[in-house]
């Protein structure tokens, strides 16, 4: 039950963020392919021109939208009616083919299509806007191709006139770069690290309140062994949790691992080591389990946002970046991402690893004497 919550929650959060930040759609006007993260968004076409050109363009729009699964296109008689539907939330966008559309094209003038999008949701608004533009680009291109062929008699490649220079990307990694690919390693690091941080704090303070800690403390085993035992148990639990989350994101979101699982393991282990000390310190300071838990939460919550787990740290204001970079979670997530996505070797992530190791040593060095003292307060 507990594990269920620990696994399900990060997955849920990850899917939320994954869909919030859709992948860059790699639309290509020459091949006519438009990728989308949001298939079949409802839009409506308002046709105010009944000329032949307008009908052709409208039909073409519907055809491409359906073929590529971009939009579920309906037709509405008036703009006002469509606008009402959009306000009610039934539509994500409206495409208006205004009066005089056919006449303009027939007269050899550029014609305009008008678009209204649901601006209450910026993400879908920009997706709808760019996808509509992309579809009309394709329609426009095919019209131009015909025109150029007609004028030129097929001597010049029409693409030379329309797009003399085109851009193609050499992918850094094969496959589609989805936001999940960015999110999964971060969430994995987050779960393992915060899981063991909270786990250690909870386990120690539970034993303290339950009374069994006394049983351990009156026995002739070194206090360090008690701490190490707790740390090890929680680390193993955290690691299992982390790899389960990775497994699930591979299954559910198509995340791929390009790097070595062994290096991932090393990074996670060090990431955990850098943080359990903090958990022990908090347990030592806190008078009871509830307070210890609250303290870890207070630390953990902002850490999720400023350590580059959910979005790249560059998107934050400068001072927040500094705080983020002072926390070990940033380095663990960064290193893990490099390993998972870019197949980085140990030499590449060495700076990250060194910082994590330093954190581990410092926090543990502070935690152990503090724990000793707190236990015989």
């Amino acid at each position, binding site marked *: 039950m*507990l594990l269920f919550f620990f696994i399900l929650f990060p997955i849920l959060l990850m899917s939320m963020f994954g869909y919030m930040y859709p992948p860059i759609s790699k639309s290509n006007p020459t091949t006519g392919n438009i990728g989308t993260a949001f298939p079949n968004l409802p839009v409506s076409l308002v046709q105010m021109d009944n000329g032949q050109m307008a009908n052709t363009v409208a039909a073409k729009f519907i055809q491409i939208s359906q073929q590529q699964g971009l939009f579920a296109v309906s037709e509405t008689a008036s703009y006002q009616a469509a606008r009402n539907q959009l306000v009610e939330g039934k539509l994500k966008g409206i495409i208006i083919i205004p009066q005089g559309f056919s006449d303009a094209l027939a007269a050899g003038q550029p014609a305009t299509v008008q678009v209204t999008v649901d601006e209450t949701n910026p993400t879908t608004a920009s997706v709808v806007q760019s996808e509509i533009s992309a579809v009309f680009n394709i329609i426009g291109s095919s019209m131009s191709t015909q025109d150029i062929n007609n004028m030129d008699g097929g001597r010049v490649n029409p693409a030379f006139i329309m797009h003399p220079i085109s851009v193609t990307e050499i992918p850094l990694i094969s496959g589609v770069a989805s936001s999940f690919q960015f999110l999964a390693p971060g969430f994995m690091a987050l779960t393992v690290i915060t899981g063991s941080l909270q786990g250690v704090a*909870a386990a120690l*303070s*539970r034993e303290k*309140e*339950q*009374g*069994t800690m*006394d*049983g*351990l*403390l*009156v*026995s*002739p*085993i070194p206090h360090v062994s008690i701490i190490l035992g707790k740390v090890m148990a929680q680390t193993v639990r955290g690691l299992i949790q982390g790899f389960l989350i990775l497994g699930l994101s591979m299954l559910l979101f198509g995340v791929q691992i390009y790097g070595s699982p062994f290096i991932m393991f090393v990074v996670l282990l060090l990431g955990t080591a850098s943080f359990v000390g903090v958990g022990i310190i908090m347990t030592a300071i806190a*008078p*009871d*389990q*509830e307070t210890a*838990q609250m303290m870890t939460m207070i630390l953990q919550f902002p850490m999720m946002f400023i350590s580059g787990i959910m979005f790249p740290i560059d998107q934050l204001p400068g001072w927040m970046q500094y705080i983020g970079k002072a926390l070990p979670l940033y380095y663990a997530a960064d290193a893990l991402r490099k390993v998972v996505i870019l197949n980085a070797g140990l030499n590449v992530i060495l700076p990250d690893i060194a910082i994590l190791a330093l954190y581990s040593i410092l926090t543990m060095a502070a935690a152990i004497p503090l724990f000793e003292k707190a*236990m*015989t*307060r």
Partner: protein
Amino acid sequence: MAGLSLDSKSGSHTGYAIETIELTKKFNSFTAVDHVDFSVQKGEIYGFLGPNGAGKTTAIRMLCTLLSPTSGTASVDGYDVVKQGNEVRKRIGLVSEKMIMYPRLTALENLMFFGRLYRIDRNTLKKKSEELLEMVKLTQFKDKLVGSFSTGMKQRINVIRAILHDPDILFLDEPTTGLDPQSTRFVRDLIKELKQRGHTIFLTTHIMEEADELSDRVCVIDHGKIMAVDTPQTLKDRYNTNSLLNVFLELTGRELRDSANERISMRTPMGRM
């Protein structure tokens, strides 16, 4: 007094099982134990009595190395509780107010776990555990989770947990509180039996008839100070009564002890995550 003749395994120099000199514990401005001197002889049952908040538990925790004294010294079996904590820990067993048992382990698993902390080898430990389970009549429940036990059963196994490693000195902090009459009787007989086996027993209790029945000597403590130490009979004679309860009330007064203890009230009942 039987104690002195018993040949125990101690490294004692003083001859006492427990000896304190000016032992003091302060929590901020509150003095829980105030320059206390007492000594417990080997093999005796020493009843440590006092109203709530008198400092009994604080004293026990210092003797068990769970708290460090603010000043003064205490030695257990001749070893200093601060400087030779580990030697002390090898020689003591503790039954505290809270059960020292993992509810999610079985009776035998609990005993095996705690026994291993004393580096008793597995086979010896298993035999010993089963023997002790038999002694407290819990053999048929040895593979059941301790969490499912009644309070009396838990306390019986809690007591044998404390003697797995055959400690010279056993600290029992209110061992019969909350038990039904049958379990109370059983635990009291068990305590007598443990004395017979040569353990020195340091016992706190609120039940005066229990202290009277079990203790060779009693020590009455109040407000962190010792009010009297003697055999129950001598004390009763001194106050010309036949009940130790009257002696206790004479010594500590009839006023109710309702003061809220900061250290306890700060703690909240734990909630499972």
